[in-house]
């Protein structure tokens, strides 16, 4: 019997498979028993009600997809009154994803969601910071540090910083999050992208641009997870284009301690169930006692930091 459990900064997960924020809600329980997951991760919530972006909010691009949903949210009250009690009936740890337009708003929400029933807080620092020209907090190390520092003082719960691929400073941002008080890093969110209908000449998304997710994002997210694992001492949770157990193995070997599955669930609602059983079967077949034995076992020789942390094309 192989051991699939992992430890994310003191939080024990039965297995390393959890949903990516925004691709999961209680509705998935109509398709399979969601208690089998390593964690439940909510769609990002904001303090106040948000209606989200104009439609179309989704389009597909060569075996992957773009989305621009715009974080519609019912606000923190609905989360505390409805969502938390609903998930309390599961043993699976609940991770709440939060977002704020400003550091103050972020910190206030962080304190408000620090309640019984929430196991960890995922900090969506990939969202725009209106105090810095709308650039996402996690584009720059300084704004990442500042927001994480404030959130660290706002809660005793584990803080997972969800980074963005829309930066040229991945290792620096990762270290800034760690120094600011992050307990783990989720690597990464979607990559800013675009698609245009050549007949109408209109962008295919109502918001003109949106985030790329799905298999084509995987090599980018994998590279970032590797860099973040090298750059920090805190656990990395891989996220981006994972659709099968081989993808999970790749992220674990690169240094991730767990993974999030997102877009794959849209195509195959039971993707996470299949991945968990395939992962178990793989470990059994290879005679690997614990999934933890794989973490960070990448055979990369003694690479110079300048190579590992390279951002420009080689």
């Amino acid at each position, binding site marked *: 019997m192989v051991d699939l459990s992992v430890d994310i900064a003191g939080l024990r997960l039965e297995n390393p498979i959890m949903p990516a924020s925004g691709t999961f809600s209680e509705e998935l329980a109509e*398709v399979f028993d969601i208690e089998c997951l390593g964690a439940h991760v909510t769609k990002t919530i904001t303090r106040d009600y948000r209606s989200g972006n104009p439609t179309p*909010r989704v*389009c597909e691009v060569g075996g992957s997809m773009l989305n621009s949903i715009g974080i519609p949210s019912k606000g923190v009250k609905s989360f505390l009154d409805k969502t938390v009690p609903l998930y309390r009936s599961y043993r699976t740890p609940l991770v709440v994803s939060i977002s704020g337009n400003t550091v103050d708003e972020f910190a206030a929400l962080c304190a408000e969601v620090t309640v019984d029933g929430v196991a960890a807080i995922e900090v969506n620092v990939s969202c725009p910071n209106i105090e810095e020209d709308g650039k996402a907090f996690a584009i720059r190390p300084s704004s990442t540090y500042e927001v994480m520092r404030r959130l660290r003082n706002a809660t005793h719960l584990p803080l997972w910083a969800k980074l963005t691929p829309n930066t040229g400073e991945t290792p620096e941002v990762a270290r800034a999050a760690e120094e600011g008080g992050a307990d783990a890093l989720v690597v990464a969110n979607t990559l800013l992208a675009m698609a245009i209908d050549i007949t109408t000449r209109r962008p295919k998304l109502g918001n003109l641009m949106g985030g790329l997710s799905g298999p084509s994002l995987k090599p980018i997210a994998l590279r970032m997870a590797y860099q973040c694992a090298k750059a920090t001492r805190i656990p990395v949770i891989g996220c981006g284009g994972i659709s099968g157990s081989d993808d999970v193995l790749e992220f674990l070997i690169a240094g991730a301690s767990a993974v999030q599955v997102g877009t794959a669930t849209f195509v195959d609602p039971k993707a996470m169930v299949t991945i968990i059983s395939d992962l178990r079967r793989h470990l059994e077949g290879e005679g690997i006692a614990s999934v933890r034995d794989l973490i960070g076992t990448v055979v990369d020789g003694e690479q110079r930091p300048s190579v590992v942390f390279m951002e420009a094309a080689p």
Partner: protein
Amino acid sequence: MGVMTSPPLAGPNASEHTVFEGDLAVLSNKPVNSEYVQLTLAASAELLDRCHAGQFFHLLCPSNGADKPYLRRPMSIYSFLPESGELQFLYKVTGTGTRALFQLAPGDRLNVLGPLGIGFRIEEDWQHLILVARGVGLATLAPLALEARNSGKRLTAICSARTPDLLMSIDYIREMGAEVVTVTDSERTSGMQHLETVIEGLVAAPGVDAFYTCGSNRMLTLLQTLGRRHGIPGQIALEQQMACGLGMCHCCVRPFMRAGERVQLRVCREGPVFDVQEAMPW
């Protein structure tokens, strides 16, 4: 209580999952006229018994041909026949997903997720139902004839198309015991003014308890006006691009007026059938 089709939310460790995900065998996949194709899948009576008019399945169109659709495609149920074990869809080949779907041959398997969403509601005290649909919209509304027959309601179907040969499903609707009124562009009978006259005639006698429609702005506006004029409720089936189909991603929202406020509702979850007066022309 009316015929309700909302799937209940499952609790923890729910032993019964209300949404089916799996492969179904293709029985046939043939054009029915110059534009539309009918796909028939073999399905268990247990699955078909859970289907209702107005609901949809999220289809994983094959990506092993020249077209490689990535996301699933939502498609409303055309017919569900527990007696013969058949689940049918009617579609027009327009893009990557439907082109891939058209490649399916008898014996192939198609992965489906469903039934999903809230279908048409028929209240017990309603006696005479009016269905107004055009083109492929008839595919969405045709199973309402089956529901009406099953619940012993009288149904009049006003079927609109560009030409008489594109009037689909009227034989099926007649077989279900409904009266059919056809209107076409080529016969110059499909204008909104003529439709209004036809519907006003039915309201005068025998009387109308509910309207059902889908997909057309002009039809929506007409039924909103007639509904308000005579206090007749109406339901409309709407479409939107979808990703998950289950309600998780919030991609498929549309705006509605509810209690004086503009709200965004998910077509996959709160719909695809909505109140005619709440729907907003687009």
